[in-house]
């Protein structure tokens, strides 16, 4: 059952990414996602980038038609929301490394904020193509997390891949858990770093979603369904899946390279 809500605030986070805030009184936890119905266009899965009361939020990067269309939708527009769906990040660990790539940072931000608020020490390693595409670096720093940055062009922070920064951090200091979300090749690297440092890892993954309630099989990933068993998985599990970082299924169910 969709609830129709009005976008009450919209923030252009980067040239290609917009955040929508909207009233939605159903309890949501960091890691969970909602299905966002853009009337007349599509309905797409979006992690919640804001999970607190009073208003929830999603942060949408322009990837294809609906997510591009989303960039220009104005405050006051009506959208449909259903959910939240899926599982959540485990907020118990006390020393957390959160590694986000691109829009993957969206789902890490509320988790990191909540963990910091509950006394955890959170370090964020954020990657982007260039400085202007960096997501939530200021928000996370303001929350009390330590923030390290990597950009492909070196316009901010370390030049290069955030995976390198993450591996360095894991080498330098002890962490109880690594959280990661971003492109799967990136997550695979982070997962391997976590494994080599003996740290437990959790990655939030994306697969094509239709029903979001565990029946249509569109989001099948090995023996799992990302919509109900995920989107957050232990990285050890992800590494054991032949498809992870390599293939996904297109809307017809055909396996295609990632």
């Amino acid at each position: 059952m969709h609830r129709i809500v009005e976008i009450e605030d919209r923030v252009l986070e980067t040239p290609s990414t917009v955040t929508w805030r909207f009233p939605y009184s159903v309890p949501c936890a960091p890691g969970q996602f909602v299905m966002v119905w853009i009337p007349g266009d599509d309905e797409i899965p979006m992690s919640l980038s804001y999970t607190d009361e009073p208003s929830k939020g999603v942060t949408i990067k322009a990837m294809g038609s609906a997510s591009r269309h989303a960039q220009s939708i104005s405050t006051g527009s009506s959208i449909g929301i259903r959910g939240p769906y899926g599982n959540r990040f485990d907020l118990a660990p006390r020393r957390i490394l959160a590694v986000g790539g691109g829009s993957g940072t969206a789902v890490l931000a509320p988790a990191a904020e909540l963990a910091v608020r509950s006394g955890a020490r959170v370090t964020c390693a954020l990657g982007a193509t260039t400085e202007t595409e960096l997501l939530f670096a200021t928000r996370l720093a303001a929350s009390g997390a330590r923030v390290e940055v990597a950009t492909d062009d070196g316009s901010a922070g370390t030049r290069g891949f955030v995976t390198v920064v993450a591996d360095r951090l894991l080498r330098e200091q002890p962490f109880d858990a690594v959280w990661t979300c971003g492109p799967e090749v990136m997550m695979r690297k982070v997962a391997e770093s976590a494994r080599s440092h003996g740290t437990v890892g959790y990655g939030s993954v994306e697969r094509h979603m239709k029903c979001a309630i565990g029946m249509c099989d569109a989001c099948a990933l090995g023996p799992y369904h990302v919509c109900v068993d995920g989107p957050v998985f232990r990285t050890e599990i992800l590494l054991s899946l032949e498809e992870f970082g390599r293939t996904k299924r297109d809307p017809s169910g055909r396996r295609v390279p990632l």
Partner: protein
Amino acid sequence: MSDLSVELAGIRLRNPLILASGIWGESGQSLVGAWDAGAAGVITKSIGSRPRPGYPNPTVEELGSWGMLNAMGLPNPGIREYSREIAFAREHGALVIGSIFGGTAEEFARLAREMAATGVRALELNLSCPHAEGFGTEIGSDPRDVDEVVRAVVREVKIPVIAKITPNAADPAALAAAAENAGARAISAINTVRALSIDPTLMRPVLAHGIGGLSGPAIKSVGLAAVWQIRQRVRVPIVGVGGISSGADVLEYVLAGACAVEIGTAVAHEGVRVFGRLAQELDQLLSKKGVSSLRELVGGAHRGFEIPAADFP
């Protein structure tokens, strides 16, 4: 422990619970998941000749715990690609039934041959799909079309053919009789009930496609009526489908005349654990009744109702 095993068109099933088409049916690994969780058979999603992405989202609308709408638009990767999923499922021991759909009898026949070649144990024909000529009615809603499709398929394959009957018809039993007459070895009923939901705020249909199909507990009584009436008209075994979410629901279908059942919407949220739960509930119900084998109960509610009711509300 009661004996829950049944026989369907010569196939022995360890219990009457089969995964319905379109649910957990995109990947071979999911089919195996349902099999390992206790399903006695797993039906593939309906497969066509070519890859189809299906309709855009929203493709699903939950109406409440009692029902949901969907208009997936028959997404499937095409029979060629899909045969790999079947191979995986078979390698892992699952009893696989292949579902196919087409727009013409010829397309059904061609697909049937290709599907049979994958080694599935039976074919289920999804007749609730649009006529190639369009116009919104289903190929399975006219007994003549059903006859033509089933005849064409039966000619092509040796494995049993199950005709899946639509509830969107004046007389589902007449469709089943046509299918039996054309050589179907079993009947399954029902597919989803034609339905639509409109969002009053946005003033537009919720599903991107507009018209969709209703499933879940809301249609249980509709499926039961179909099975009941089909039982009065055909002799081949019937597989009951529609709104089953408890062992008592399975029993209702069995008493109405089904020898096995398919589980669809109940897999949502609960996952394939539903198969274990239903088997356990069914076993308890039989023990309470002192019935040692489920097979004894097939059609058991027809006593005293042998004369087809000419009259209804």
